[in-house]
């Protein structure tokens, strides 16, 4: 089932917005490096995705999964690899979710109690299908966009450009923020499989990357200019920003609603992708969703995954680039170039190539 462009873009954006809301700035946050890091990360993802999308267009396979399905061994190995990645991503999302909720709203409540409702809803969301998820994401994105716009407008009077007067740009900090941004983009790994759902993957993915860049740069600009040094001391700067301006003072809990909505969409999307890689397992679809949900909950609650710290960011970024870009590019290139050499005879004994 193909989904609309608005739905596809919203789905990917909501997934990224969730990560934005729980962004934790480290000590010595440098806004310009942060902005450059985001831009660099977007450029890297943009180049890789452009190559991949061009290859997919030339390939006979609709998406990466159908390509690897032709080789049974490869399919099992890569399914395990990608399935594990999405399970771990889901665990990280849930871990971040419970930490955030514990830190801000439910200090004395067990993480398990917080995790159960959201994972149940996510299982239901995944079971509803990607079409439903994309439609829900577009509604949530509209609400977010409205609140984000208001936050941005209300922030205007508190903006202080002085914080952008960084005299020296450190390459290491730019690289650090680039790695952070890539590690916070598991949506990139969804790209090779998203071709199956998107009507125009090139348009949709590049619209997503552009909008993502706008939202991330605007929010980092606001975080730096409104919160100033306080950005280093607050656990969740974006959340703090939203509660610190104009009419939203004291109403920051409203963001909790959007954040929960986006978390449920992101978790559902992850469960949906886990289901793709467990397609061959002879279990009913809803049982697979429930089982995946239980594993994600266990992973997040038993401490198998940790938050986004320095080393795990590097590992995540490497894996995301490998799985979202490099591995699919290698396989698609192999297929496309081998297709070039192949020729076929049709029913009328005419010579033709698959790529005609």
């Amino acid at each position, binding site marked *: 089932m193909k989904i609309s462009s608005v739905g596809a873009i919203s789905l990917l954006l909501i997934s990224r917005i969730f990560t934005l809301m729980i962004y934790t700035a480290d000590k010595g946050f440098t806004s310009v490096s942060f902005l450059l890091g985001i831009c660099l990360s977007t450029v890297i993802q943009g180049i890789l995705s452009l190559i991949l999308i061009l290859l997919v267009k030339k390939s006979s396979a609709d998406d990466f999964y159908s390509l690897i399905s032709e080789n049974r061994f490869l399919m099992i190995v890569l399914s395990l690899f990608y399935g594990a990645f999405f399970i771990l991503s889901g665990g990280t999302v849930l871990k971040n979710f419970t930490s955030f909720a514990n830190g801000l709203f439910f200090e004395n409540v067990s993480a398990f109690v917080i995790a159960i409702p959201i994972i149940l809803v996510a299982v*239901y969301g995944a079971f509803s299908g990607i079409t*439903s998820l994309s439609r829900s994401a*577009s509604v949530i994105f509209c609400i977010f966009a409205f609140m984000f716009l208001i936050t941005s407008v209300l922030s205007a009077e508190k903006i202080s450009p002085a914080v952008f007067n960084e005299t020296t740009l450190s390459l290491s900090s730019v690289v650090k923020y680039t790695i952070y941004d890539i590690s916070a983009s598991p949506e990139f790994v969804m790209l090779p499989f998203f071709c199956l759902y998107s009507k125009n993957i090139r348009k949709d993915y590049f619209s997503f990357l552009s909008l993502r860049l706008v939202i991330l740069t605007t929010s980092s600009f606001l975080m730096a200019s409104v919160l100033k040094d306080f950005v280093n001391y607050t656990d969740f700067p974006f959340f703090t920003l939203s509660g610190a301006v104009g009419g939203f003072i004291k109403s920051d809990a409203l963001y909790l609603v959007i954040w929960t909505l986006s978390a449920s969409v992101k978790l*559902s999307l992850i469960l949906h992708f886990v289901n793709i890689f467990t397609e061959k397992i002879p279990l009913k679809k809803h049982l697979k969703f429930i089982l995946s949900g239980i594993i994600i909950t266990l992973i997040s609650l038993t401490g198998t995954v940790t938050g986004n710290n320095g080393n795990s960011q590097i590992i995540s970024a490497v894996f995301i680039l490998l799985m979202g870009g490099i591995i699919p590019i290698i396989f698609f290139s192999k297929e496309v170039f081998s297709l070039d050499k192949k020729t076929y005879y049709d029913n009328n004994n005419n010579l033709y190539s698959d790529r005609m």
Partner: protein
Amino acid sequence: MDTNFYENRKIPSNIESFIADLTTIMGDNAGLLKNRIEISGIKCVFLSFDGMASLAIMTPLVLNPLEEIEIRRATPYELKNHIKSKLILSTDSIECFTYGDLLRRLMSGFVFLFIDGTEGVLGYGIQGYERRMVGEPEGETDIKGGREGFTETLNTNISLIRRRMKTPDLRFERFVIGKKSRTDVAFIYLKDKIDRKMLREMRKKLSSVELETVLSSGYIRPFLESDKFGFFDTVGTTERPDVLCGKILEGRIAMLIDGSPYALIVPYLFIENFQTLDDYASRPFYAFFIRMIKIIGFFISILLPGVYVAIATFHPEFFNEKLLLILAEAESGAPLPLFAEAFIMLLLYELIKESAIRLPRAIGSAVSIIGGFIIGDAAVSSGIVSNPLLIAVALSVTASFVIPSLTESTTLLRFIFLAAGSLFGLYGIATVLSLVLFNITSEDNMGVPYFSPITPFSLRSMGDTAIRLPLKKLQKRNFNINNLREE
């Protein structure tokens, strides 16, 4: 033994065998009137059901002309041909060849003439059973709309539609559903607007109905809905012929069921719950205002008690100091937790509402007064329930009255949101909101997403959603529901 063994059984040409068969099938049925007569020397039997045919019409229009027939040495077929070709005993005349067909018509108010020695029975539609007159639709009142509503009689309802749609493209397809009740139902659509695929799907859905009886539109509704569990109805209902005409004009299919004053409409969109016929009689800005009031009312009706309990319990920082003190003071005297108070009040309201609906009107209003004023006042003055909570509950239930078509859903969701808000605060509310959002966006009927044109978004179809464009602009857009279909 198959009770419908006679359904396809052919009617014999011998009068004695025919009467014997009827006695076997109908048993000792006092309602069936079998009058043996002779017309031009040929034995005949005149069949009717007591109370179903109009006696006032039967004698002058059917019996008298039959008595006056005089054909010398006529054969049975000559007599039959004479009646068929020379006499118009009723404009609604048919000929039945099987018992199933005969009995169904007979019990619908037709009278039949069996002529010994001929195959087939001549039938005349002169129904004369008691029926309710066309009156104002009680559950769907409009200020500037018509005053006519559907009745329980299918033919009357069809005539109400026909009067408003004088086009040859208007189509009625009649079916019989219900193994025992043999209820007449009719599809209504405009031939030039309907999607053929949708029509085929509708026929297929209807053919899956194997109920014994169909006593109201509610019996058919589940068969027209999608198989998924949904909080909301994806099949619309109306008791107004003008509303129905508006819907079929947009490429929908309506369905009338004999015995029910409610027509079913598919596909139906969520946003239509907030629209009324009055919107088109008002100026666009006012229609927009009223629709927004209804949308806000919907959110108030499902969320207010839950959000109030969630904020008061988990996020008191939302309230300013003054309001917080008022609430704290009001709650300090209440012996029950906030959730229990809200739950009891909502339950009490549902009890009073249900009893007021089921009881005769005079007593029902008395129950409302006792329930609403006396019990409510006593609950507050005794300190069991706090005043702010009572306001929240009362506002919530009052808000639900602006969208009567969503009453079932709002009632259920109000309790669910209350439970979620009480357990997890705004996080619980957001979790259930996600659930509802997933549910509502996954719903579709006949391939039309229930939440469209909001999502999937269709700018072209947004002219008549929360906003209502001027009719001059709407007519240019020529909205058809099939444009929203997703394969």
